[in-house]
């Protein structure tokens, strides 16, 4: 089936060549990081995680959001999602791969990665996270490839495929819950030490991931003529909207608890991110941009007339993804380190090397997604003819 990815028009190959060159730049930057150490990044003793772990967190959310099409299609037989479901699953595959690569990029000694499995430590959340992530990657890849293969041959899928898909539904929730537990169990980091973190992770994931799926569906329609259907996009838009509403609601509850209780440790990080702390305002403009674009996109999505218009839908979905990327991919991780355990405010700016590595990993994920979706489109279009 994979041979279908080897036949494409000129723009397909230009796109592939572009992605490969970005991967090349990323690899050379990573080579520099391996040689000189993580000192080439913007991270330091006080802000010891940065862009990489932030991307990891955001992408696990995108991966988990596949459940927003898998669950309605397989459990509730929502036929509108027939053409979308495999796109969601393959998005989950590439997002999971990217998130694992970001963990690898962040490690000081990636050559010792297998130590996590050689010395299994159930008390460490990383151990569970690696288990659920690799399991999720495998089950999504295997089940969606098997479904597509069966569809191509015009035969019903093998008996084991459906149970695997059913298993992937609770697994998707577990993937993002465990990711939230990575942060929510640390006694000294008060921005993360909150029981609302896992539900908020799920809400922001379902909003951003679903909005991204709508955008990918538009891109596919534009570039290949393969249309997953207006009804599917309309339903996804409703799902993204309410997940977005839930996300803003959870953020509001964080604000209430922190500022009404007035407990300094609870409010300092939020204060730093949104209002500035002791003369430091590094993330304030970015966080307000995130909040305003998030709220604005949800308002647009809530109005049926706007939601049904393609330009408005594309605009709102892009704004929602960007808003959550900033909130979860920048604010949440960096904000957790400020103030430091010794009450210091340290600023963080990613270096060029760090940004190149990040772009390189994104390019790997997008390349994988492009190849997988190329096969999907070829198989589906063949069937339609």
């Amino acid at each position, binding site marked *: 089936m994979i041979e279908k990815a080897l036949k494409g028009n000129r723009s397909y190959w230009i796109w592939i060549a572009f992605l490969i060159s970005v991967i090349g730049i990323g690899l050379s930057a990573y080579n520099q990081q391996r040689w000189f*150490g*993580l000192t080439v990044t913007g991270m330091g003793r006080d802000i010891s995680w940065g862009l990489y772990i932030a991307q990891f967190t955001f992408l696990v959310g995108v991966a988990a959001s596949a459940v927003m099409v898998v669950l309605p299609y397989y459990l509730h037989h929502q036929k509108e999602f027939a053409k979308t479901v495999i796109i969601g699953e393959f998005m989950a595959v590439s997002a999971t791969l990217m998130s694992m690569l970001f963990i690898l990029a962040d490690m000081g000694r990636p050559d010792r990665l297998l130590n996590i499995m050689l010395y299994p430590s159930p*008390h460490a959340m990383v151990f569970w996270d690696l288990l659920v992530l690799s399991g999720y990657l495998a089950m999504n890849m295997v089940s969606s490839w098997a479904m597509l293969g069966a569809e191509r041959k015009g035969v019903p899928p093998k008996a084991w495929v459906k149970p695997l898909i059913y298993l992937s539904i609770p697994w998707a929730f577990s993937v993002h819950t465990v990711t939230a537990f990575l942060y929510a169990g640390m006694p000294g980091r008060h921005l993360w030490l909150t029981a609302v973190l896992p539900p908020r992770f799920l809400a922001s994931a379902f909003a951003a991931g679903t909005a991204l799926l709508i955008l990918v569906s538009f891109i596919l329609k534009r570039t290949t003529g393969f249309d997953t259907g207006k009804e599917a996009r309309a339903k996804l838009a409703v799902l993204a909207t309410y997940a977005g509403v839930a996300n803003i609601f959870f953020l509001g509850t964080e604000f209430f608890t922190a500022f009404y209780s007035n407990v300094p440790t609870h409010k300092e990080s939020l204060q730093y991110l949104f209002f500035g702390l002791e003369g430091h305002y590094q993330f304030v403009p970015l966080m307000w941009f995130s909040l305003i674009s998030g709220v604005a996109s949800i308002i647009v999505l809530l109005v049926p007339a706007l939601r049904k218009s393609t330009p408005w839908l594309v605009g709102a979905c892009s704004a929602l993804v960007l808003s959550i990327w900033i909130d979860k991919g920048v604010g949440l991780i960096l904000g957790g380190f400020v103030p430091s355990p010794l009450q210091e405010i340290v600023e963080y700016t990613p270096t060029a090397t760090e940004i190149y590595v990040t772009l390189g990993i994104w390019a790997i994920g997008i390349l994988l997604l492009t190849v997988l979706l190329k096969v999907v489109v070829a198989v589906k279009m063949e069937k339609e003819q």
Partner: protein
Amino acid sequence: MMNEERREFIKKTALGVLVGLGTVSGIVPAFSLEKTVLPLWDEKPVPGKIRWGMLIDTRKCKEGCQQCAAACHHAHNVPDFRNKKDEIKWIWQNPYQKVFPTASQQFVSKEIQDRSFLALCNHCVDSPCTKACPTEATFKRWDGIVAMDYHRCIGCRFCMAACPYGSRSFNWQDPRTAIHDPVTTYPTREQGVVEKCNFCSDRLVKGQQPACTEACPEQALTFGDLNDPRSDIRQLLETNETMQRKPELGTKPSVFYII
């Protein structure tokens, strides 16, 4: 010809004897080059029997004196990069509000505001760092010391995020370039692993006091077994009012302060 063979034979024999001596000194403690025999080690270690702890009498700590940190960092080949981002430190001085940010900050006397307070690994009983470590590279020893295995650490820095005291440092670059006066009694580290205070487990095994405790000209530091009611440290804890850092987090630090 004959001569060469003889020379070769003598060389190999000498090498063999050296290897044999080395092995014997490794296996039989009496022949060891560096004495590691202590009453402590005569019996099998019982987990939890000993809990090493430290009491810092901050009233005795003189401003501008850096002898404890200098002795520690020298004894453990701690690099000095002279920049805050890559900084590695095992023990260092800080003002009151940084070491005790959750203690009362209102109407603190000028004298306390000006005083230096030492910060180091607390060797917590319920240590968040060892819980977060996915490879057991940092772990609780039988005597309460939170130790590091530099050869197992994968450099994920989870322990750094988990530590509520900022006691852990990461080797952002090769530390060996920044060790100005290296010692041969403690290993250097590699790029990409985490390190921190080890309560001088390397010195305790030789029957010595921790380097910082020994170096302090004012005897401000008292090191001892918190589980032994007759130890000096327990006597001082009985007779003085003391503080721990962030006790509200439930980590049960083994480092105490007299303010």
